[in-house]
């Protein structure tokens, strides 16, 4: 059985030659939640965008492969690639405020994609959307479908986006920090919803986050990213039980704990950062684009 998403030795550079992804390899098996953890700027969102084919123009992929259900995106022509990505993937975005078009009603935005891209009948799309709104526990679908995005709360908008992501039955969903922009109280509900829908639909999720607490709750597998390099990859339980890499250990130590709220926050230790710098330099030293 081929992996739902298989990224092999993916490297990307900025126009000034700086590497932003360093031979990243990771796989997401069908029906599995795989977390991608790292601090801001580690390149985790970049990986998500690369998979979905929406990298900024300035970022250039210089080596590596990305396979969705065994199909190599790099070997497809742009149109076929778009069609494949559109049919098999979806995005749950970070900011529910800017992810919905402010001048179109929720209902038309949600059904439009099913009708225009996937060729469903309007009626079928409508039914499907209502079913999904029910699954994300929206109690008054009539009102929500008729609303404009600004008339809904952040949590409601994120529910709508989750429903929209699952509506077309994608095989893979990229969830890009889907709880970061929400209140802590809402975060928990949204997380539970994503987990629930993921189990019910058997969708694979690449879950991008900086929050180890979220990782522990939702994922079966974790890749820890630093400066565009995967420094540790493990089953979630194994990672939390025995983190191998000093950076992973430092990240865990830096997570604030509710049991001891008065403990001062610990930044990642200098020696760990120095170690990482040496590791990154070693990885770059022998690297030439195309030759690995």
């Amino acid at each position, binding site marked *: 059985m081929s992996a739902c998403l298989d990224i092999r030795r993916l490297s990307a550079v900025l126009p000034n030659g700086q590497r932003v992804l360093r031979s990243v390899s990771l796989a997401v098996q069908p029906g599995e939640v795989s977390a991608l953890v790292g601090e801001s700027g580690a390149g985790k969102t970049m990986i998500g965008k690369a998979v*979905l*084919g*929406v990298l900024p123009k300035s970022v250039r992929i210089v080596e590596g492969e990305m396979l969705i259900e065994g199909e190599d995106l790099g070997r497809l022509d742009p149109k076929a690639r*778009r*069609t494949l*990505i*559109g*049919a098999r*993937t*979806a*995005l749950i*975005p*970070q*900011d529910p405020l*800017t*992810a*919905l*078009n*402010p*001048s*179109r009603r929720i209902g038309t*935005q949600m059904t*439009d*994609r099913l009708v*225009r*891209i996937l060729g469903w009948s309007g009626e079928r799309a409508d039914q499907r959307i209502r079913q999904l709104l029910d699954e994300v526990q929206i109690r008054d679908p009539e009102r929500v479908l008729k609303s*404009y995005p*600004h008339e809904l709360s952040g949590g409601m908008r994120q529910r709508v986006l989750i429903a929209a992501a699952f509506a077309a039955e994608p095989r893979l969903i990229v969830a890009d920090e889907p709880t970061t922009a929400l209140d802590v109280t809402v975060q928990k509900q949204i997380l539970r919803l994503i987990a629930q829908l993921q189990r019910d639909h058997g969708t694979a999720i690449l879950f991008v986050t900086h929050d180890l607490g979220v990782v522990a709750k939702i994922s079966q597998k974790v890749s820890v990213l630093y400066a565009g390099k995967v420094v540790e990859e493990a089953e979630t339980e194994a990672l939390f039980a025995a983190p191998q890499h000093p950076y992973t250990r430092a990240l865990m130590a830096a997570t604030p704990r509710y049991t001891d709220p008065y403990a001062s926050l610990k930044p990642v230790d200098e020696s760990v950062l120095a170690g990482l710098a040496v590791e990154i330099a070693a990885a770059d030293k022998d690297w030439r684009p195309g030759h690995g």
Partner: protein
Amino acid sequence: MDEASVAGRGLSPRLWLAGGWLLLALLAAIFAPLIAPQDPLAQDLMLERLPPFWLDGAEPGYWLGTDSLGRDLLSRLIFGGRIAFIVAFAAATSACLLGSALGLIAGYFGGWPDRIISRIVDVWMAFPPVLFAILLVAVLGTGLSSVILAIAIIDWTRFCRVIRAEAMSQARMDYVESARIAGYGRMGIMLREVLPNVLPSVVALLSLEMGIAVIVEAILSFVNLSISTDDPTWGSIIAEGRLSIHQAWWVLVFPLITLILTVLSFSQFGEALKARFDPVLR
């Protein structure tokens, strides 16, 4: 809920005052032959420089007085409104269509289409607009269509610049990215996701541009480069009034007031419409 919120929003006095004046002026212009008290071209030297109705020496039927050739000022203003509105609608709409389309393409697609369009806009804006208009009309010849064409040719850049900037910021929005992921084509995204969000600005600018077109037409007829001198236009009435300011101030003042009210109303009406159309502001 919808009806209530529409009524609530509709009560903006700015919208009603500006819209009311424009509607009044527009209706007067459309039905000019029916409502104008006198023939705007009829000269009568016995009636020259009659003052407006509240001053001594006014004649009934000549509400705003007469000019130095004895022509009724109110009738001339009403007929002048016809040309003002035709120019306003035709020129502003043409400039809007051309400028908005190019601005949308430049802003959304970026890259070389943006570079080409932006350079053209830069070059265009280097010409002083009024001089450019006078030059164009001198080349195209006087007449209604030349005036309309000249205004459209000069002022499309106004739309292009604003719409380009808005389309650029829209293109960076997450919902545009989501649409790309879903598999929409670039054209589809531009029309379905970007255009509805720049439309409020287009409407506001269109209304503003109508006001500007009225001014430009007035300027052109002031310097005698617009329509044939027989037809009354606000600009030509102002030009005549300027010559007799010491004997008959009303010939200058009333067309000026009409012009100012109309231009102000167009811009205020546009702003109010924008506020109403914008789903986030309202």
